[in-house]
């Protein structure tokens, strides 16, 4: 016995989402059938709008409704610092900190030859262009993840940028604030001891 075509298509669509297999997709599809009409309409509109009304900022690569994005357009921000992140969602996390007032740049991933991602597949050319055009640029802060790929990407960027005389820095590794030492794993502790600071 086959599912009727509309629900089969819906299951197939849900399965395209990350982390959702056939069983979860089927559950979600049947839940959707029981949802109120208004909710379903709003849901489908949100889906389409997210795709149609959002673009990548032509300067920094952030997701935005208007181009350039709100951060790039804000001239009161510190124009001499750029913080480089892997994903657009990392910008939101950084902004929550409310302490950084410089600019951002989104790479859209990290270099990983295994996944077929080389330097040319990342948003690097526009970063270099940006740095060349901005004579006030003092510092590039690299905030890629602490994975081997993130480290390799960070090192690649620093070698690319440093010859231009711009300072390149990397986020610190170590203990998370407010946590107990006894719960930290050995490698985090090792990094924390390695990166200790004088008091």
């Amino acid at each position, binding site marked *: 016995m086959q599912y009727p075509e509309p629900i089969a298509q819906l299951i197939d669509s849900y399965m395209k989402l990350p982390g959702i297999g056939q069983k979860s997709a089927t559950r979600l599809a049947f839940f959707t059938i029981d949802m109120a009409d208004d909710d379903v309409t709003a849901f489908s509109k949100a889906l389409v709008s997210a795709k149609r009304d959002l673009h990548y900022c032509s300067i920094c690569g952030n997701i935005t409704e208007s181009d350039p994005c709100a951060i790039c357009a804000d001239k009161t921000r510190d124009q001499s610092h750029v913080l480089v992140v892997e994903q657009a969602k990392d910008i939101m996390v950084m902004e929550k900190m409310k302490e950084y007032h410089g600019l951002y740049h989104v790479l859209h991933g990290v270099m*990983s*030859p295994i996944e077929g991602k*080389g330097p040319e597949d990342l948003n690097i050319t526009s970063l270099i262009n940006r740095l060349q055009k901005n004579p006030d640029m003092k510092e590039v802060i690299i905030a890629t993840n602490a994975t*081997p790929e993130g480290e*390799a990407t960070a*090192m*690649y960027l620093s*070698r690319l940028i440093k010859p231009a005389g711009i300072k390149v820095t990397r986020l610190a590794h170590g203990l998370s604030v407010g946590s107990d030492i006894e719960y930290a794993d050995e*490698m985090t502790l*090792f990094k924390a001891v390695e990166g200790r600071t004088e008091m």
Partner: protein
Amino acid sequence: MYLQELQLQHFRNYPSADLELGPGINVLLGENAQGKTNLLEAIYVLALTRSHRTANDHDLVNWEAKTAKVSGRVVKSVGSVPLELTFSRQGKRAKVNHLEQARLSQYIGQLNVILFAPEDLAIVKGAPTVRRRFMDMEFGQMNPRYLYNLSQYRTLLKQRNRYLKDLQHKQNRDLLFLSVLTDQLAAYGAEIIAQRLRMLHKLEHWAQAIHAEISQQKEELTFHYATQVPEDQLTDPDTICAALTQLYKEHQDKELYRGTTLVGPHRDDLHFRVNGKNVQTFGSQGQQRTTALSVKLAEIDLMKEETGEYPVLLLDDVLSELDDARQTHLLKAIQDKVQTFITTTSLSGITRQLIKDPTIFHVANGTVVADGSAPSGDPATKED
């Protein structure tokens, strides 16, 4: 530490067994295909929750039963702990001190064992990958930083090999990214080499003493870490890293042509030398056995040095492969130190007066009987 008692239920060809074990040497005596190795396997399983002989836990359960149980009591310097493992179709459950453990990682480590079986000769005779795996397994167990460096190195190696292959096919050659991968690989590679050298030095120290003992001071065992890094630069990680970087520079054209990484700890080897000659190529069968045995026994002392307790030693059919003098010295080397389980088909090789109170168990067709006591357990019906 030592295992004080062992109980089996529906494990392999044992319907049930309940044994009081001696803290010294325990001899499992019996004909072929009676269940001697199954008993060793039970102890190995009790320690590590998995078998060295099969990847499928269900093979451990007796053909006529649904669940198998292995339990025992481990005596350590700080007191004794009961351990219990149950295997069924639903999986395995592990209990420490009668409390069920949610994660097997919390269970493993309660009982440490070192197994020496005839297959372990491959450490000496086999391909370099066997020796690299040996180093990685042993040192990784004792040092979490080694394990971390190793996993980072493996990831980077995969990335770099892939990138070298990509460079072969593409017109556009971004060698800057290759240099980044190379430098990172060199940094982790240097850490791994430095740690291997440090641990090998300790292991060599213990292995040398044991080897001298077994060979009656006639032979000297030395370790040689075979790597492309020049010997005079094998010092601290920074120097090794610089040497590796230089090697990568020299090999770059060849690596680009071959599309793979040709230098680093993943291509290194460990050579065992007896009186200065490589045992793998120039040693006799007996010398190769003695070397493998010395290295394995040295692990006992290294584990004591690193963890503070002696592990339990399991020797599977090792005695028959050694001559009388080597047997005697092996038994001398482990006596009074480590609880040992030996499987053998006859006692004739073992000079009985040398072993201080060996506990002897007669193994026959799925039953174990301690020497001089009444039979315990039901006689099994033949399985096959």
